[in-house]
Every structure is written in C-alpha cells, then in structure tokens.
C-alpha cells in the first residue's frame, strides 16, 4: 500500500456517468478521497 507522504500516482479513468475523471483536474483545488473496493454487487 502507498505510504503517507508519498506523491499520489496520477490516473484518468471513465466513470459511471460518462465522465473522464483524472486526479490532475483536482490539483491545487480539491483534496481527494479514493475509495478502493473489491467489486460491485458484493456486500459491505
């Protein structure tokens, strides 16, 4: 797992509402919380 203090790796990915969302677009403007999860339609 990535460590606190490291530079966050960039990404640009499609989302479920047809948008392309990249980390870069939030640089200097927003904090970002990434919720990684195993799979859709699974419990918890």
């Amino acid at each position, binding site marked *: 797992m990535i460590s606190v203090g490291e530079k966050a790796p960039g990404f640009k990915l499609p989302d479920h509402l*047809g948008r392309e969302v990249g980390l870069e677009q939030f640089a200097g403007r927003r904090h*970002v919380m990434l*919720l990684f*999860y195993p799979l*859709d339609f699974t419990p918890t």
Partner: protein
Amino acid sequence: MPETEQLLPRFRAAHTQVLGISVDSIFCHANWAHSLNGISFPLLADFHPKGATAQAYGLYLDGAGITDRATVIIDAGGVVRHASSVTPSGRRNIEELAALCERVDKEHGAGLADFPTPEGIGKVDALFVKSNCGHSLKALLARANLHLEDQVPLKNVTEDAEARNELKRLTGKDQAPCLVVQGKAMHEADDIVRYFVSGAADIG
C-alpha cells in the same frame, strides 16, 4: 457507498472530492449504483488495463484479481495524507474518514474554492424510454444516480400507448430514448446523460 453518498455535503464542505474505484466496467458501476438508490459521485472503472490504478497504489490483489477495500486521502498538493485498508471483507468507517478529511482541510488552511452549486436541469417535459433497450437504460440509470426522479417524469412507450402517441406528436416519430425539454427533443442516450450531468452533478 450509500453512507458516503449521504455524507457528501460534509466532504464537499471539507473541499474533498470523493471517488469510488474498482475493476468493474462503467456499465456494471451504473447498474450497481442504481441498486444502491443512486450514487452521484464518480465510480471509476479501473477496467482496462485491469487494476492498473490499484496497482500503482499497491492495492491490487493479484491472486484474486480484485482490489483491496482501502481508502487513500490525497491533499490538494497531491500528497498522500492517509492510507488504510479494512481488507476486502471489512467495513469502512465513513464518519471517521469524513473527520480525517476535515482535518486535512483544516491543516491546508483557507484558499480552496467551495464546490459550485449545480445549475439545475431546468423544466423537463419527460424522458421517453423503451423496454429492453440498452440506450434507454443508460438514460434511466443516469436519472436515478443523479437523483432526478422527481424532476424528470418518465414515460414508457413500449408499455403505454398514450405515451407513444404523445412522443409521436411531439417529435414526429416514436424513437426512444428521447428527452423532451421545453418542447425540444434529444435522442442520443449519451447526450441525455451529458445533459443531466451538466445540470445536476456537482463534481468540482
């Protein structure tokens, strides 16, 4: 995810954009989000190449081909401020994560602009859909995931002859999906989704 959706105002107030991410496709995401009563924040498809972003964060579980259940908070400077796993079968504490984001925001100090208020989608006459139609489903899912049910009346032209006649009268044909806004017709599912997103989504 529904707990997070409910706490979005708190994350927004802390100038934090929430993003969900798994190896599923955008179609799977949209259907799942709908089954959870609508998820409006982005669910990202780390689908191709599979799990590449999870790998970059050291959160891809090679043996199982899935991503760990883990949370990474990145500040506006692009630096990781929090990283934790609850394991795939574990549960996140969203309240605790909201408090962490508030702390990151406080330490960052002033200077970040507030999230913009969505402009709204205006007065929509109706969304006409067909049964068993993937394009109609796309528009329907976006309507639900952005919580637009009350603002976008739904008419099914397969099940309701009156709706079909109305669509023909309004647009000259019975092609669906079709979003009618102040008498103007929009037929492409992707255009309809974009229209909903541009008016109602508050990614910012």
